[in-house]
């Protein structure tokens, strides 16, 4: 082959996205020890922060060492991933407890206000939940969701345009959804019909969405920025939860879209795993040839899945601009589409687990916002946490998992 011949296709030899499923047969007693070690490790850290706020690391060190030994034993006895997780967690907990027990108590009280942290977690997690659901739908159907960032960005801009033109947040959100669908449609044509390399096409759409949204934004609003009097998505208060108790502050009132996101998780999980269309969608992603011979239209199903993922990501973007911030700025998603993709992988392509991952990442953002009491630097560095966690997860330390069998492989009717 000469140097100038077209590049070989990397898609061909890519191993299944995150390794292979390993059937781990574990003695239930060993598994119980492993999980107990995880809980002990968490407890070791927990007792040094409010409301307990022990001022000495000694008990934490004891608990941590017990957890580490338990985890190590369990890992040796067969419960590999949970056991090693407990060991890593115990080490982190001891370090964390050491730092926290030495930290200024007043500042600690300022950072760890659980109710406010929960509220902020929900706020930051909502766009991730929407986009991660979109990612799951697309990847379960066998199409890589690398374009989530671009779809979100488009959703954010179009939501602002819609709300500005119609003076209605609801229409704005719907237009934002269509903005996501529009990007998804282009992606679908390339990824499904033209059988393009999905990683390259997704990257292209992220670049294009960045350019197009910036272009439209500058052309439409110039130097003024987005309008100040945008119609915003209202908050919805739970009836019977007033005042400033723990639940009132944490979940008493949240954006309408946050509630909708939580409902959407259940809905997507139900559709994917309990209905025929969901089964078809997964079949198309797992074994397209088999699905086709069973009479399921592979290409059409994948199209619908990608468009739906665009709608979800568009909702996430609309939440950012019309609910969280009330404005649009260039590149405002700032990597949230990739955190959402991380949540998909972290959650092993399952809506419930992806919700947990999105909440975890939202929580780390919430903590990061408050850590500046201690130092700005620490707060900044904390933003890298979701990405580091995902690195660890895909490296197999958290446990191997498997993406859809035909993920990233274009389907050609035989």
């Amino acid at each position: 082959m000469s140097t100038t011949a077209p590049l070989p296709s990397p898609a061909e030899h890519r191993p299944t996205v995150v390794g292979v499923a390993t059937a781990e047969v574990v003695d239930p007693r060993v598994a119980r020890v492993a999980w107990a070690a995880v809980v002990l490790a968490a407890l070791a850290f927990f007792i040094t922060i409010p409301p307990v706020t022990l001022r000495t690391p000694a008990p934490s060190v004891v608990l941590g060492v017990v957890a580490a030994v338990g985890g190590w034993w369990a890992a040796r006895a067969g419960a590999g991933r949970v056991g090693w997780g407990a060991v890593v967690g115990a080490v982190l907990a001891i370090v964390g407890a050491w730092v926290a027990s030495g930290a200024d108590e007043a500042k600690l009280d300022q950072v760890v206000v659980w109710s406010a942290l929960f509220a902020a977690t929900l706020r930051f997690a909502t766009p991730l939940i929407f986009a991660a659901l979109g990612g799951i739908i697309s990847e379960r159907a066998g199409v890589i969701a690398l374009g989530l960032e671009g779809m979100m960005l488009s959703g954010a801009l179009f939501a602002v345009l819609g709300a500005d033109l119609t003076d209605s947040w609801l229409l704005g959100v719907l237009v934002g959804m269509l903005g996501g669908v529009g990007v998804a449609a282009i992606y679908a044509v390339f990824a499904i019909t033209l059988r393009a390399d999905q990683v390259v096409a997704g990257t292209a759409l992220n670049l294009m969405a960045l350019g197009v949204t910036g272009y439209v934004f500058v052309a439409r609003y110039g130097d003024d920025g987005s309008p100040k009097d945008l119609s915003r998505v209202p908050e919805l208060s739970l009836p019977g939860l007033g005042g400033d108790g723990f639940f009132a502050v944490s979940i008493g009132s949240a954006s309408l879209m946050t509630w909708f996101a939580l409902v959407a998780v259940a809905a997507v999980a139900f559709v994917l795993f309990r209905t025929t269309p969901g089964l078809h969608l997964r079949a198309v992603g797992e074994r397209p040839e088999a699905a086709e011979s069973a009479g399921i239209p592979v290409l059409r199903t994948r199209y619908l899945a990608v468009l739906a993922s665009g709608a979800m990501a568009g909702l996430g973007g609309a939440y950012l601009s019309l609910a969280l911030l009330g404005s649009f700025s260039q590149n405002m998603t700032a990597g949230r589409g990739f955190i959402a993709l991380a949540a998909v992988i972290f959650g092993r392509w399952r809506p419930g687990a992806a919700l947990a991952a999105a909440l975890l990442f939202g929580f780390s953002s919430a903590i990061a916002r408050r850590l500046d009491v201690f130092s700005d630097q620490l707060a900044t560095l904390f933003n890298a946490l979701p990405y580091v966690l995902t690195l660890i997860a895909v490296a197999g330390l958290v446990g191997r998992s498997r993406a859809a069998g035909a993920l990233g492989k274009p389907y050609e009717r035989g």
Partner: protein
Amino acid sequence: MLPARLARAATTTRGLAGRGVSRVGVPLVTTFLAFLAGGLAILVTGNDPFATYKAIFDGSGLSWLFPWTGGDTREIAASSLQQTLIAAAPLALLGLAVAVAYRAGLFNIGGQGQYLASSSMAIWVGSSFHGMPALPHVVITVLAGVAIGALWAGIAGALHATSGANEVITTIMLNWVAIWIGSYLFGLGGPLQNTEDRSLPVSPEVAQSARLPVFWGDPELQGLHIGFFLAILGLVVYWVLIARSRAGYEIRAVGLNPEAARTAGISPGRVTVKAMLICGAFAGLAGAIDVLGWEYRISTTDITVSQIGFLGIAVALLGRGSAVGIGIAALLFGALTTGASQRNLDPEIFDPALGTNLTLIIQGIIVLVASADIVLGGAVRSLAARSFGRLRTLVARRREASA
């Protein structure tokens, strides 16, 4: 991406002429389509696409190459062309960072992170050791940048080799880790924030002794630095590596078929790590020459808005993985970025704020079209074959008529 069988058929079973057509034709058609779409975007805002592209061309300084450009215009063009080449040099290296991985069957989407890790390192080393003689200071700083870039990519390579972690995901995550570490280092109160003005989230300035010498133009006004030659050297090294070296042979073998390579005694895991290290070294070199050649200091905003690593993907794809192609594609994107920049684009003709986004759109479309490369390649080839056939019948008819 089409099945390998088809891809191979597209490149081997057709005649050499067909291959030649797609090698030059596909990138040309791709670029044309992208500029066409960009032209429509210009039209939508009520501007004249031709005048705008002319202004971008003038802003890129490429008119310096025309001997009839004279006087003041020539001087301005020279300064703009220096900018274009300054921008093209790291783009070429970042293109190589993608191309090497592609040869090994990997997709390195982490050029951005490798570049940023290296710029941060180059700032650190370059702004330390004041009073060191220039030559060792430059060499040490560049090597430090190259090393951290290689390490950053090597993490992804090692994870891929040991646990099968997909390099697309890991390099994306590493990008963001690099972005946040950079923001941490140079941000307010960060350990590497400058000491003169604590209110600015900006790095300290690289010492004079660590700067790359400028060989064309005014060093005060961002003249062309010798990093340009390092980039050209990088292209040559890439060509030798891929076409003439044992390591390159192994990389290509693993890229084409890891199982067959394993049977032939090549360890795919080791080659994967090696390929990623080389990618990271190229991206690291790009970050180092930008910092030492013209930036000298970076702000946290520079870190967050930079898209240069992703443009490297566009360069590699448009250059179709060949050293010459990557060089030309880097020059094109360097010219486009420079010509549409705030500094060089005539605001009377087109708003530079729009111009920057326009270049992103054009580059995005190029990557998008390239993603469906083989489809387009087929179209170009059949078009070429058809027109060639038509030409042949035409000539035959003429001959018949005259006979």
